[in-house]
């Protein structure tokens, strides 16, 4: 460490501290409730997208993450409404349920080598199972009309029911979850798990032959992803104070995938960038067209996805990172921002 310029590690920490300070100031800035609402949504979708990409970037493309969102929100919502069980207990139960479902789907899938688009279709079916089960059990879930969590005695701040009228509370929860997801991403990125997963996504049989436990390795990220996605779903349910089976449908599951791909599912910041962009796009189109053109923003969204898959499979962040590295000459290996191994080659 030379005296004049701080070491890279120290500089990184300084930037991280600055960034965190800025993030903590955000809810206190004088923008209205609407902007804060959008920021909360962006953060929650960033969590879910990053959680999805934990699997997606290793070729484990799930089209059924809505299932975990639904299990999370209905788990907490039903326990609260029927048994008045506080979310403090409901959350661990719901997350455990999501992880268990992830295990029930993941273990046989990986054991029997259900890969590629077969895995995508199995997860798609899982989303439908959750959505239709909620609708079928309409006697106590409210069916396709959805349901509203019972209001706590204190309308404004109830730590027991985790219901808050002030959006700033949810901002902090979402921020915390987001940081946890990012931290897990970095942990995986620096671990042997990542190398193993990359090997598996290149060639599963070869990976197994050099001693990688394929099923266990894939299961680790899958269960992590399922649990974190359920947490995102719980957050959404508590925040919106309304839950519906459509959260488990193919529409939501695909939106998670889209945002992550557009942002760049191979890089740490990509899915978050995608969440910010898609919500910003959605809202600006809605403000521009109002209710006259319902569906316009989603149409543009769909077109963008097609274009991204064809021309920029690494997403905006991945594309920018590649361009930046090329400009700077020899690439500085930044964890997470490197090129993917399988899904974009050739």
């Amino acid at each position, binding site marked *: 460490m030379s005296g004049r310029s701080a070491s890279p590690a120290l500089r990184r920490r300084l930037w991280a501290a600055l960034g965190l300070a800025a993030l903590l100031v955000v809810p206190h800035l004088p923008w209205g409730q609407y902007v804060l609402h959008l920021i909360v949504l962006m953060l929650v979708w960033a969590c879910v997208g990053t959680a999805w990409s934990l699997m997606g970037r290793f070729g484990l493309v799930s089209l059924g993450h809505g299932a975990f969102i639904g299990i999370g929100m209905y788990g907490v919502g039903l326990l609260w409404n029927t048994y008045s069980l506080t979310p403090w207990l409901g959350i661990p139960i719901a997350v455990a349920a999501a992880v268990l479902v992830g295990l029930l789907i993941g273990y046989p899938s990986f054991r029997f080598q259900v890969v590629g688009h077969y895995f995508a279709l199995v997860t798609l079916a899982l989303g439908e199972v959750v959505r239709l089960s909620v609708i079928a059990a*309409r006697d106590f879930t409210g069916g396709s009309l959805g349901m509203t969590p019972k209001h706590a005695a204190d309308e404004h701040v109830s730590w027991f029911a985790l219901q808050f009228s002030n959006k700033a509370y949810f901002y902090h929860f979402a921020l915390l979850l987001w940081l946890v997801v990012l931290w897990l991403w970095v942990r995986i990125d620096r671990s042997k798990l990542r190398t193993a997963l990359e090997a598996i996504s290149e060639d599963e049989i070869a990976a197994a032959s050099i001693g990688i436990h394929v099923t266990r390795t894939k299961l680790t990220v899958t269960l992590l992803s399922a649990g974190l996605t359920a947490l995102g779903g719980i957050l959404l349910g508590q925040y919106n104070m309304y839950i519906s089976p459509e959260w488990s449908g193919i529409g939501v599951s695909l939106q998670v995938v889209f945002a992550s791909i557009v942002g760049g599912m191979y890089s740490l910041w990509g899915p978050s960038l995608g969440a910010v962009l898609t919500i910003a796009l959605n809202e600006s189109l809605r403000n521009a067209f109002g209710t006259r053109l319902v569906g316009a923003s989603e*149409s543009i969204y769909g077109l963008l996805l097609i274009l991204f898959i064809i021309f920029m499979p690494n997403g905006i962040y991945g594309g920018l990172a590649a361009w930046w590295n090329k400009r700077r000459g020899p690439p500085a290996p930044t964890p997470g921002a490197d090129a993917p191994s399988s*899904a974009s080659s050739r």
Partner: protein
Amino acid sequence: MDFFDIYLVEAMLNGVLLGGVLGLLALGLNLIFGVVDVVWIAYAELVMSGMYVVYWLHAFGVPMVLAGLAAMAVVAVMGLAVHQLIIAPILNTPPINQLLATGGLLFFLQNFATVLFSAEFRNTGVSLPSLRLGDISLSYSRIIAFGVAIAGVLGLYWFLKKTFIGAAIRAVAQDRQVMVLMGVDTRKIYLVTSAIGGALAGLAALLLCLQIDVHPFIGLQYGPITFMICVLGGLGNMLGGFLASFIIGQIISIVGFSISQDFAYVVAFLLFILVMFVRPEGILKRRA
């Protein structure tokens, strides 16, 4: 409940009729998968587009049959466009990319239909009487749909077996690398296949128009179950797909009759997941 319940028989017969339509839906998707080796996840949205063609032409006084033919033509052209614009550029990338790109198409078609036609439920207003056999009543629209679906399947079978281009399509499905060496232009085969797949979606659209309302999100109801059927039968295996559609049709009808319609779909999807684990190649193994 008696062992022999007349309404259960009615449910089972309706299941057979449902199976016919599902079989036709699965057929086009299966053909494209078998030949081009791509899953069009937006297939049900192409059917939805065809349903709007039928609906609007019928609303302007075009007879149902002509409207159906027009829908077949329009969706066939859409099929060509899907292949040429979306699939062809990424044909050699990992299959999951193609699946996701057509996922983008799914979103686009659904929401563009909402922009154009609003989310209203629209009915062609064609109502056909019911056939009564004792206590059993079957709607004629379902019987017609079943008949046309069977005719469509037989027609495709004849085309693949008896025509030169049909033989070329089957050959490409068996080995796409070798056929290039034999001087077959696979790009042309892919285009023809995509157009036929589209036309079959158009035919399915006509049949669905007789039974249900048109709606931009109708694909969400039929899309997932169509994939399940194709995979159950073994993706690309048309006979297997047809058999699977009757199995699924029976499950939906019988469970729907004895418990509830939503639960019936839950059972169908769970069965699908189980079959994927036990027999990922489908109920009928694809012949090499």
